[in-house]
């Protein structure tokens, strides 16, 4: 019976073997680090809530001063604005991570377009819109909704539409009171209003006026439904609440807590 003969390992065979081992090692490391990185970036907590001035932003907890800190929400972008620190942090809710941090007082952010206040006016990216917006929302690439003063020394404001290219302004709604928030969800324009003396609150959906029981501070979508958040105020007994808007009615979801994303 003939003995088994092993293949002699010559120089070429040894090099081939070494290359194969190195290739397998590299492949293993690449796959390992990609999986590890993805797992590392994905937060354990996938919700955004706000309670007692503390924002639970996925795994991070952020304290917001009642004023002048503020939040802007244009799904999927959630912006935390801290004017005294001159920073605004933009989070992408689809990716569940921070998209960018800018040294501007941001009013809205959408798909790389930045709307912010600098000095005495509002800018859309690098373009000076020539007026100051108190609140604003990027409706489309070429159109911005802006809440601005009717008269410079008065608190009364109005909602206007601005064509970014031509800077032509068009009045949408002039309030005898205070417009508190604006958003566009789908094709509908939402805005909130408060009557300071009667403390009555309203939400407008495409100019249809609905009286609601709380301040309309921020209007936003969540899981195909529409909501508005009411931040703490002397006008609402210092409570944070959020409401869903269903069939022209506001239904309170939770008292003392706001859920922005789940």
């Amino acid at each position, binding site marked *: 019976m003939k003995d088994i003969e092993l293949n002699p390992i010559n120089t070429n065979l040894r090099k081939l073997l070494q290359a194969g081992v190195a290739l397998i090692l590299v492949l293993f490391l690449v796959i390992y680090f990609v999986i590890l990185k993805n797992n590392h970036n994905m937060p354990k907590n996938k919700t955004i809530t706000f309670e007692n001035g503390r924002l639970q932003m996925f795994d991070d907890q952020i304290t917001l001063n009642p004023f002048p800190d503020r939040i802007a929400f244009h799904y999927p972008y959630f912006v935390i604005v801290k004017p005294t620190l*001159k920073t605004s942090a933009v989070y992408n809710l689809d990716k569940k991570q921070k998209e960018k941090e800018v040294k501007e007082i941001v009013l809205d952010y959408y798909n790389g377009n930045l709307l912010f206040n600098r000095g005495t006016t509002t800018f859309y990216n690098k373009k000076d819109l020539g007026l*100051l917006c108190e609140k604003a929302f990027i409706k489309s690439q070429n159109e911005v909704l802006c809440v601005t003063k009717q008269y410079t020394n008065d*608190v009364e404001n109005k909602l206007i539409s601005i064509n970014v290219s031509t800077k032509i302004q068009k009045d949408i709604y002039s309030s005898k009171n*205070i417009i508190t928030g604006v958003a566009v969800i789908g094709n509908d324009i939402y805005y909130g209003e408060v009557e300071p003396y009667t403390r009555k609150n309203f939400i407008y959906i495409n100019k249809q006026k609905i009286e609601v029981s709380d301040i309309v501070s921020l209007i936003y979508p969540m899981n195909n439904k529409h909501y508005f958040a009411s931040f703490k*105020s*002397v006008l609402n007994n210092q409570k944070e609440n959020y409401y869903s808007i269903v069939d022209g009615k506001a239904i309170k979801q939770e008292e003392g807590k706001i859920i922005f994303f789940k």
Partner: protein
Amino acid sequence: MDALQKLKAIRDFKNDPFGFIIDSIIIIVVNLLIPIPMSGKVAVQFRGPVLGCLISFLILGLFILTVVGTILMTPLLMTSGFLKTFTLGSNPSANGSFSETAIPHQNPFGGSGMDYCIVSAYFMDPGYYLIFGKNHTGVDLVPSDSYFKNSDYYKQNREITIFSTINGKVSYYVDSEGGETVEVVNNDNSLKVIFIHFSEVLVNTGDNIKAGTPVGVMGSTGFSTGAHVHYEIRIKDGNSWLAVNPLNYIQ
């Protein structure tokens, strides 16, 4: 013998006048201090090492005095503000970026336009009204990156100093919520500027100051959630003072 001694003395003086004077002083001083015969002449024999020791002790003493003095005096000088007279000059209103005026047209951080400041809350800001239920009758300002990079005054002092934007008369008081406040009323009593939340006030009630005079250091005293300056302009309206938008004045 006397004649020989005199001759030797004259020769010594001619050859080494400085040494002769020193020797004479040493003999006189030593004879006075140690009344023993020849003590002065013995001391002169060792004048080199003696003078060396004396001078060394003198230099050492001066050095110790300087070091100890510096250590002891530094905190006193720093807190007294005496050093600021060297960095700012004797005239505290010497801020080159302001011009004398009765109508404000600069922001209170200095610089041109809004370059040195960021507005953290606007005049009649609805956000402020919704939270606190009262109107915000001024603007809240914080320094911009440009301020920290370019303000010569900040670079010299490392304090965020607020300047008067008009010429006028000062009133200093603490408001009902604890805010350190400075008001400056212009000379024809038609307009006043108000600054609130200072951590340190640099003027006194009754002072007549010019635009550009440092009035205080930015702080967070009173009704405030963080360091900023509340800047307000009021114009005379009959018997009352009407708050107007300060941003309309800044050029």
